[in-house]
């Protein structure tokens, strides 16, 4: 669940502000040029504090997934598919796979970001199979 002030958070507010407008952002290091996630004060790959949020193309592949049948809170409607998605830009995140039957999700499947409302109505950067994803990359579903 996301409180309404997420776009004001130190360190991560800019990421959530992007999500709110249907744009997927990622920290990119100004020194080593690599992407990382979750956001940290300094680049965990080279130690530089000089990094910025840059747009992501929103393309990735499923590294792993699990279909959750027992949600931690009733607001989450089970079953749903949690996944670790490896982004083409070299970062990864925990997310949902949407617009795909649970029994068709596969490790290695190509996915595209698909902004989806969470249980509190706020947008979240979920992912859908590439074949099912339509609209421009990063566009709100």
């Amino acid at each position, binding site marked *: 669940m*996301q409180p309404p002030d997420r776009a004001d958070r130190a360190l991560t507010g800019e990421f959530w502000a992007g999500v709110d407008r249907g744009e997927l952002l990622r920290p990119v290091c100004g020194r080593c040029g690599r992407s990382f996630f979750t956001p940290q004060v300094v680049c965990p790959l080279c130690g530089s504090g000089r990094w910025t949020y840059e747009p992501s193309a929103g393309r990735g592949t499923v590294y792993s*997934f699990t*279909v959750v049948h*027992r949600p931690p*809170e009733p607001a989450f409607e089970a079953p749903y598919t949690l996944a*670790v998605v490896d982004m083409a830009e070299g970062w990864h995140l925990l997310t949902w796979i949407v617009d795909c039957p649970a029994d068709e999700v596969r*490790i290695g499947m190509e996915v595209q970001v698909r902004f989806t409302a969470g249980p509190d109505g706020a947008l979240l950067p979920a992912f859908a199979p590439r074949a099912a994803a339509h609209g421009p990359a990063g566009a709100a579903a």
Partner: protein
Amino acid sequence: MSGPAARRHPLAGIAVAGVAATRQARSLDGNSIQICLEAARAALDDAGMTIDEVDGISARWPGPGGTVFGPGSVDWTAVFGKGFDWVGDTYPQGAPGLLDAAAAILAGQCSTVLVFGGRAGESAAGSPGAATRATVPSGDDASSAAVSSGDDAMSAAVSSGDDATSAVASYTRPENEFVACWGSLTAAQFALVAQVYLHRFAPDPERMALVPATIRNAGSANPEAVMYGRGPYEPADILASPPVAEPFRLLDLCLATEGAAAMVVTGVERARDCPSAPAVILGGGSEWYRQQYVDPPRYDDVARIGAGAYRRSFGMAGLRPGDVDVFELYDICTFEVVRQFETLGLCAEGEGVDYLAEAGIGLDGRHPTNTDGGLLAYSHVGWGGPTLKIVEAVRQIRGAAGPGQVPGAEVALVTGAGAGAQYHNAVLLGADR
């Protein structure tokens, strides 16, 4: 320990002189302070000591009352009516709690440390609203996969083939902003690791289910276990239980129950004067890869977590994994038991399921494992859960483990945490000889 080789290792000369576990149950009356005190006093009794002799304490304050200042263990001074020379808030207890206490003694900061933890009166067990209630602060309970609903959900799953949605269950809820928003839970974090393993190695499901079936049957035979008398379990029962977070089914996952555990740690010379034979530390180590439940765990990063801790532990002990008589492993889920045997090097990556099916992890097997029923069937009490494994290891070494006793057990391995939590720890305990 006697013998020059044993004397040389850095943790030599420290023993567990007393252990205790309270009654463990789905829910207990009272509060966490009361149950912790009960365990602490029982461990002192077991060691033949009084609190007067204790000059170190590691038992993070569970409240109510006290302050928000760390170290929280200082709050216990008001309860015991005395001060201590050393306090520790070691996270988690179990192996790290024992190793920190040993280090404090060896560094001359104190001579006898009381380590304890547990919970009571926090579970909303049986209440229709249980699923909506946070039963424990998630940070304190990060090590348990499933919170509350233990026995009812289990029995429902086994006896009536109940579906996954009807049993009331609360689960740990990681609070990080990039985890909580997705409705993840501790079991799911471990499932994300296990899924890659299954994808790559495709172990036989029946053989894999033999692992929780065997451990649960040990719990069935242990009168102190929350799941005492349940079963017997066959692999088919595990596979027939409802899914929680695929590939895990209900019976693949640990309990989340109430109760407390405690141990008294002191020098081996002092321990030799105690009523029970000492269990000495032969070696130990910890490994921290990442903070738990922030960045998602990746199989390729955490598949072998613990290998370094094991290497250091066995290096100190001058032993090999094959020398272990009894394994008290952190069985938060089926996969973790398999993964730990692979990480110990007793079999190759991907071969753990077949290896364990052939070697056997029951009392009649080559590697008796979680002889009390483990977190799967004995109990898992959050903060104190890892210490329950020390309690069982010490009882094994004393020859006092009851129906789960491994005849002649002299070397026990205790582990804590696992791949989904991105940290792991181990301690080797042995007979004083």
